[in-house]
């Protein structure tokens, strides 16, 4: 009897081994990461497929209450009133959180596949992209969901979990650690990844971290860290030394002749050289621009028509943007971000909306370089860069009238030239990136006060320190995270 049991178990074991092979067949045709090309394909999804513009822009001084009868979407109303955003759908902070972490998961999977590959050396450029994308997604997360980095403090407030390996359990516990830790990790990944990046590895470079886009990212990173020497060094890889203007969006030349739909068509297109990195985001922000809280006609009158500093009592300098602004009643918009609507089937009325978001542009790199030049005492070069910029933005640009000078700056902003120059940069940037959410970071960096009014409400809504940090998703507590202290 004993022997029978033994034989039976032996038989069973061999049978089981055979069965395991039989059962190794995948249930469906799923992809395997077994070549550098496939890892590259996976890395095409290592960019946050979510959009921050709605909640970032709505929290800035670029928007006001148009008091129209539209039902304001929660995605813009809540950040406008500095409340926790109730929505969890596209364009909410929560959706952006999920988008960033999904991108990180793709990066980590790619790194894991590279580590397991027998021919690691063939994966160098993939490793570069994986590290840089991982750094980028964490960088955006920490800036939105943690206290903003300030080199003058120890940055010991809670950061966000820096994830470096793929999750394989239903609920995993994570730690927030500190903002400093997150910034250190970003720096490490970024610096390790940057030299590995190879543009030739990309099929559609505009949607990937090319060398130029990675340098632009590094420049933004060090700008936030206020390490201006590094900003100069990285922007030198982005902003050309000659013919800078030719790399900027041609607003007062070819754009000037375009219709609304043509502008929509070019602004977020890969063939536009100013777009250093584009990202496909699931977003209905394209519609929010026409909703209740947005670019108001009064704001337009204040910042959208006359070019600050250049405009004086004697000189008229108008933004080309003013001639490409559309709207009615209180509503103004510039045709930049067009919705790409993908219906669920040929005959459906419903589908998903996408926006191709320009994450890094030549203009931002130019402004970052100008800012770093200003702080490193090279005002002349900074002004020269800004003049290159203005030559593409001023309506009927005439260099004799419209050249920016130190004198004009100090006249417009009394005080030091450095201070005046920074204010000039911030003002130009504000207009340049209207609708795009970039103003939010300048508000954080320079503590620019924001106050919003809501029609029918007597008391205004002000941006407090606590409200500068967006709330984590409620479900983050499942993974052992502490929510941010903001109440509502």
């Amino acid at each position, binding site marked *: 009897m004993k022997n029978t049991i033994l034989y039976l178990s032996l038989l069973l074991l061999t*049978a089981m081994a055979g069965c395991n092979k039989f059962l190794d067949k995948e249930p469906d*045709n799923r*992809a395997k990461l077994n070549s550098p090309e496939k890892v590259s394909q996976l890395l095409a999804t290592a960019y946050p497929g979510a959009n921050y513009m709605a909640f970032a822009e709505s929290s800035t001084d670029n928007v006001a209450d148009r008091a129209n009868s539209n039902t304001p979407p929660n995605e813009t109303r809540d950040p406008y009133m500095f409340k926790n955003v109730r929505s969890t759908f596209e364009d909410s902070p929560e959706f952006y959180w999920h988008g960033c972490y999904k991108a990180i998961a*793709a990066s980590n999977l790619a790194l894991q596949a590279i580590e397991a590959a027998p021919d690691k050396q063939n994966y160098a450029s993939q490793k570069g992209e994986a590290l840089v994308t991982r750094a980028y997604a964490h960088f955006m997360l920490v800036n939105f969901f943690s206290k903003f980095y300030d080199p003058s403090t120890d940055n010991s407030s809670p950061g966000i*979990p820096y994830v470096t390996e793929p999750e394989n359990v239903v609920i995993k516990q994570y730690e927030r650690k500190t903002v400093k830790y997150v910034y250190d990790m970003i720096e490490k990944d970024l610096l390790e990844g940057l030299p590995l990046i190879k543009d030739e590895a990309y099929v559609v470079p505009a949607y990937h971290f090319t060398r130029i886009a990675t340098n632009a990212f590094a420049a933004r990173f060090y700008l936030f860290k206020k390490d201006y020497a590094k900003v100069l060094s990285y922007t030198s890889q982005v902003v050309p030394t000659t013919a800078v203007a030719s790399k900027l969006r041609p607003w007062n030349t070819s754009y000037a002749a375009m219709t609304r739909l043509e502008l929509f068509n070019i602004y977020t*297109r*890969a063939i536009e050289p100013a777009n250093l990195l584009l990202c496909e985001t699931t977003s209905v922000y394209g519609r929010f621009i026409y909703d209740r809280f947005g670019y108001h006609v009064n704001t337009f009158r204040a910042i959208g028509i006359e070019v600050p500093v250049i405009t004086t009592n004697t000189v008229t300098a108008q933004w080309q943007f003013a001639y490409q602004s559309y709207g009615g009643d209180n509503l103004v918009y510039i045709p930049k971000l067009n919705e790409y609507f993908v219906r669920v089937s040929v005959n459906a009325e*419903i589908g998903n909306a996408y926006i191709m978001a320009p994450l890094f542009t030549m203009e931002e790199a130019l402004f970052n370089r100008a800012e770093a030049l200003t702080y490193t005492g090279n005002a002349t070069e900074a002004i020269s860069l800004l003049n290159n910029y203005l030559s593409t933005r001023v309506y009927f640009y005439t260099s004799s009238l419209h050249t920016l000078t130190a004198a004009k700056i100090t006249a417009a902003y009394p005080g030091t030239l450095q201070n005046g120059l920074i204010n000039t940069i911030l003002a130009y940037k504000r207009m340049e990136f209207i609708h795009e959410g970039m103003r939010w970071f300048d508000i954080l960096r320079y503590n620019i006060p924001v106050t919003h009014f809501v029609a029918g409400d007597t008391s205004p809504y002000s941006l407090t320190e606590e409200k500068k940090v967006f709330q984590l998703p409620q479900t983050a507590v*499942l993974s052992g995270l502490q929510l941010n202290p903001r109440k509502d």
Partner: protein
Amino acid sequence: MTKEKFNNFVGSVSTKLLKTVAFLLLAAGSLALNSANAQTAEADITGTVQSDKNIALAGVSVTVKGTNKGAVTNAKGEFELKRISGTATLVITLVGYNTLEYKLTAGKTNVSIRLSELVSTLDDVVVTGFQTINKKKFTGASVKLKADDIKIDGVADVSRMLEGRAAGVSVQNVSSTFGSAPKLRIRGATSISGDNKPLWVVDGVVLEDLINISNDQLSSGDPATLLGSAVAGLNVNDIETFDILKDAAATALYGARAMNGVVVITTKKGKAGKTQVSYTGNFSTQLKPTYNEYNILNSAQQMSVWGELERKGNLGPSLLSQSNFGVYGKMYDLMSADANGNFALENTVEARKAFLLRYAKENTDWFDILFRNSFVQEHSISISTGTDKSQSFFSASYYNDNGWTVADNVKRYTLNFRNNYTLSNKLNVGFLTTASYRDQLAPGTLSRTSNPVSGSFDRDFDLNPFSFSLNTSRAITAYDENGNREFFRRNFAPFNVLTELENNRLRINVIDLKLQGELGYKFTKNFKYDFIGSVRYVRSTRQHEISEQANMANAYRANGNSTIAENNKFLYRDPDKPESIPEVVLPYGGFLNRTENQLLSFDIRNTVSYTQTFNSKHVVTALAGQQVRLADRQNFSNTGYGYQYDNGGVPFTDPRILKQTIESNFPYYEFTKTADRFVGFYGNVDYLYDRRYSISVVGRYDGSNQLGSSKTARWLPTGTVSAAWNIDEENFMQHIDAVDYLKLRVSYGLTASLGPARNSNIVLRNKTPNRPYSTERESVIDLVNLENSEITWEKNYQLNFGIDYSMFKNRLSVTVEPWFRKSFDLIGSFKTSGIGGEAYKLANYADMKANGIDLLVSGQIIKKKDWGWKSTVTFGYSTTKITRIKNEPLVFDLVKPEGGNMEGYPVNGLFSIDYLRLISTNGTPIFVNENDQPNQAVYLQATGSDTFLIYQGQVDPKFTGGFNNSFTYKNFTLNAFLTYQAGNMIRLNPSFKNGYTDYDAMPKEFYDRFSVLGESFVNGVQPAIVDRVTAAQLSGTYAYNNYNYSTARVAKGDFIRLKSVSLSYSLPIVKANKIGFNALSFTVTAINPWLIYADKKLEGQDPEFFNAGGVAQPIQKQINFSIKAGL
């Protein structure tokens, strides 16, 4: 209710019942008293022997007991015995039949004897597909149904026959279109997001689905549902029995697939003896629906509502820029000048009035136009023959339904060939071949898409004649005054439903082939080896043919003016030319879209079994075995653009339509493959002591690749212990005559099923990114699911009690089965912290409790020579409660007609928006919104909905069952069968909208609407038709849509239905023989003749049917005439 109280309850009910029945029986028995006078003279006896199916039996040996006298029956079943004792006992024997002893009555020289088939001993065994077990020994809960008993002549789908026949088996006919599956549940839902459908097993082999239709999809009306019924290819006449296995003990050998119960079908085998040929013919007609069953305004009433709409500015000339219009749009169209500056209709009050008056008087009967009293015929012939050494059974059938609507028809052919050979006393083999082919035509339809923004389902180009009739106003016409077809506008193109149905159709072909082999080898008397292996191949093609005359094709060519061109979504605008006017990209032809599904499956099983009886008291049975199963499925579909049906079938494809398709990110062809691999090991030991105590232990170890290629998640052990006590075999029971059979059963076990998750390893899939310019696209790999190393099968523990009781010589039998089930590790979608990269994960995150009771009472109330009355009541009760689920459903997920899932509520609970009242100033509805405030707007995409939604009840019925009565008088049988269900709620059809069109039909509720009379409002129960200003204010609130999903639009799902009434007459043998038959019988059946009770609020809406459009049709009234003949 505690268990103790519960038992008391059951006890008291059954006692009362027994008393009543006993009284009835006593009364009947006293009538039957007769006396016999003893005589002992010799006599010549003649007689006939026939089977219990009235077939004359030849070759029957008739011997006189105690003598050597005897005779054999001739071909007509006749025999003659000369000079035997008038009170002798005859012994009648035939292979395959029960031996009968017949005592002669003095003075009676002509006798008619019936032999019962040995097969009917199947009554006493349970076929599990793995084993055939004596009922005495069996410890599980199962129901045996004989196909002949439950067959409703004229119903082609096997699964529908089970409705109301077995306690605890619920069948909801969500659609009756041929090929679609009913919602079949054994003891309610076991899973939340997985399938709840039972496993179908035919002759020992699991019948794999060609495509898996999910719970929600069943009632969606999508074309794929026509392939939903696994048993659509089975010929009903080939089926011998059904064994429905309900509890863990009964299904134990199916292990990790049997969580939802098992239906085992045993088909007929050839029999030794004379060759038997039988023919069954069914001829039926399905009746056209009529308007008095439904709740629709007639054309004059409709026109008056439109009048109000027009006064409120809703039906103005702006209709001309709309994609669809009806009567009013047509009027404005005719009022605009043609190319020559002529007006077809003058813009005068008189001319307009005359124009509209015609439609007001029309009262179109869409049912009459689109439906017909169909003719369905089914012919089935079978030949059974054999000797002791080999038996064969052959059958072929043809089913033809020429269509209840003008747009559908079905033909089905089946073939079944089965041979069994006894090669030696140790070895026997069997072969089985079945084949079926189906050719079906259905109205062209597309899959629906759910629109969570407005909370509705969209389906463009819906042509379903049934939903068209219900949704199209009776003031719209199919023909103009001259009898020519009249067209209105749909998708900017002319539309006439008859033309469209001729030019837009779906052709479905299914081929299903199965080969099966069986082998049995007896090593010794006690030790046996069995092999069963089968291969099955199924292929279906769905060809959607849209000709160039179809509205769907013409919609691609509608660019009459620039407004139309701008608004027509089927035109193409080159992304490089954003300011250009959209262009036509389908200049010629229509579409030819094909979808092809294939299934190839293998199933192989090896079993060794051992049976031994010790000291004639201890019976031990043991078996062990192994199973390997494989199912490869593939699905291919493509869209053929510009196929020219009228021009020799040559495609003309404009390259821009492909560009449009690709730029819109629609796949223009698709191909997916899935592979299912399954391995199982099983063992079973049964022990029976002294026919009284039986105990059974089953263990099974299953492996599947469905969870993904992780080596740990794929294996799962399951097992069951069960016991039975045959109380009637106890010595102390031998003197109690009231009890013929009394058995107590209990079983407890673990069963499982695979949930919908497939990610025990990471799931990556290529996709094309959603970028607007094709030059900026690249193939990318998307992370679909993270690895979940903790994933496991959905499982449940089941506890089942059973009492089987029969008395009065088995004339009354009762089965009561309370059951308790705890499902756990159910797979649900829940929201994570997202840090891993997957915001919503499918994980084993839900638990559920379910319990219920199954009750069967069956009685032969009257059993006399010429007449009898047999009655059966089945009753099933089940409740479910989700005890843990971490999902976050949207409001829309909970209010939709199919129901949603929330912790603390039953599976598929129906929730409603809390309707408060109508606003007295304009008659628009107001609700409690997500912030607990009265508001017209309710955000259907909100989460956290449990706080403000009203729970209405469950969508699945709590009580289901049937009541069957069968009366026989001589050769006549009258059968009446009722089914019922109760305890569920139904969402009413969504009829209310912010704005109405000039072509949609409105229900009669609109007569009760809030309306304006001069300056004042007339109070009504239903919301008002709003003017344009109010409509503009309401836009974005979806108030009227919310009303559709509110507490005001819910009805009870309870119903009692007379499912069938049939009268049959079988010719007496002698008469049948005279005209050359062994047996001949005729049956007239009325199917679904009467919905006896349903909630009045439903106003004609069928409580079982989900009017989802597409290919869905409600169950029909049908009259069937059936002939059965034996040769």
